[in-house]
């Protein structure tokens, strides 16, 4: 009888612990569509239509496709993994979340952390098939910057809260899911952008050099007297949430190009060498190129 009672108590505790663990475990997306739904931002558009329209033009809205070269770069990375005997990848379906978070998706899709390895494999297969329709379903959208990546100092400020959008103000937020609004300490600071626009990534089993912008900003722009944030140049002064680089902004507009690179050409009149008359006359052309941006050009 005592044994039976002990068994029933242990069984009850076991069931209770299992139920608790199941509740505590964060549900991860099992398909690309589930991940897209988890990060659905269609409700943002209703109130923030202009910002949403700006964002739709940005390269963030197609972060897995990018300029087109992104697809080639990632395909090349997957092929590399297949050739590396220690990567654990023989085919695209062997790619896991860990492969992605170690490399490309640390920046191109940080929300991959909220997905299972099945999703990681689906995306890898989409890359190898050049399936851009699938790749277009997930991207760097409102919730990535205004929730997932919004809190940079988490030991001090805590992790991003699930029902909160982060911006420049505290208060309530008219959304069914994201009902609260909180001020992010770094939303308007360059470090916000630097979370992704930095590199190279060399402290991991697969090194990746994609962007080195933030390093250039810190170690060249600021010491040379620069005092603007990324957001000031790329959002406040032009284009808002389109966040264009001036390279993308308007190639045909010389004034916009000058905001990044200003060129002066001085062609001095030709002269004849008097002292050495056998030398042909020559001219001197001086080209001055000034970088007005907050980082090296080009980068990557």
């Amino acid at each position, binding site marked *: 009888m005592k044994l039976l009672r002990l068994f029933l108590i242990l069984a009850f505790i076991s069931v209770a612990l299992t139920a608790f663990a199941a509740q505590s475990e964060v549900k991860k997306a099992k398909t690309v569509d589930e991940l897209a739904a988890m990060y659905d931002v269609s409700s943002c558009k209703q109130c923030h239509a202009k910002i949403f329209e700006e964002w739709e033009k940005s390269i963030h809205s197609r972060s897995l496709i990018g300029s087109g070269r992104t697809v080639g770069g990632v395909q090349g990375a997957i092929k590399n993994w297949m050739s590396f005997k220690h990567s654990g990848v023989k085919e695209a379906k062997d790619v896991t979340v860990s492969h992605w978070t170690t490399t490309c998706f640390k920046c191109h899709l940080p929300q991959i952390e909220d997905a299972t390895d099945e999703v990681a494999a689906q995306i890898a297969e989409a890359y190898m098939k050049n399936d851009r329709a699938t790749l277009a379903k997930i991207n760097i959208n409102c919730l990535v910057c205004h929730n997932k990546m919004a809190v940079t100092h988490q030991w001090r400020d805590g992790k991003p809260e699930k029902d909160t959008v982060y911006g420049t103000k505290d208060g309530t937020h008219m959304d069914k899911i994201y009902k609260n609004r909180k001020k992010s300490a770094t939303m308007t600071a360059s470090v916000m952008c630097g979370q992704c626009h930095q590199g190279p990534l060399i402290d991991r089993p697969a090194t990746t050099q994609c962007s080195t912008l933030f390093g250039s900003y810190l170690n060249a722009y600021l010491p040379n007297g620069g005092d603007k944030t990324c957001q000031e140049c790329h959002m406040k002064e032009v284009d808002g949430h389109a966040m264009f680089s001036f390279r993308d902004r308007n*190639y045909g507009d010389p004034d916009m190009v000058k905001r990044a690179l200003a060129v002066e050409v001085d062609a001095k009149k030709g002269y004849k060498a008097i002292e050495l008359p056998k030398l042909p006359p*020559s001219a001197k052309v001086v080209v*001055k190129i000034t970088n007005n941006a907050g980082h090296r050009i080009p980068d990557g």
Partner: protein
Amino acid sequence: MTAKTKDGKEAFKSEKIYMLHAGDSRNEGDQMVYGPANKLGFLEENTFQPLQTKVETYDIKFPDNTKNLDVNVELRFQYGPEVGTIGKDSYVLYKTTKAISIK
């Protein structure tokens, strides 16, 4: 940059690529590589630095019996090693032609 005579003959040409020239850091020669998964060693850094002016000077000799040259300067942003299609993956940021004459 090119300098041409009035009848279109090329008297001078110079082309320079400004970028972070990367190798693969595995000391397997000095070959430049492309692709974020490959490049890590830095072979040469000649990008345009923020708030800095890069000055390039060209000394152009006039060919015999030539008194006039047209100097064409073009600064182009280009994806990838190939020249590419203008307006698609190759973009002209600045272009000018200067005439130089001697008496």
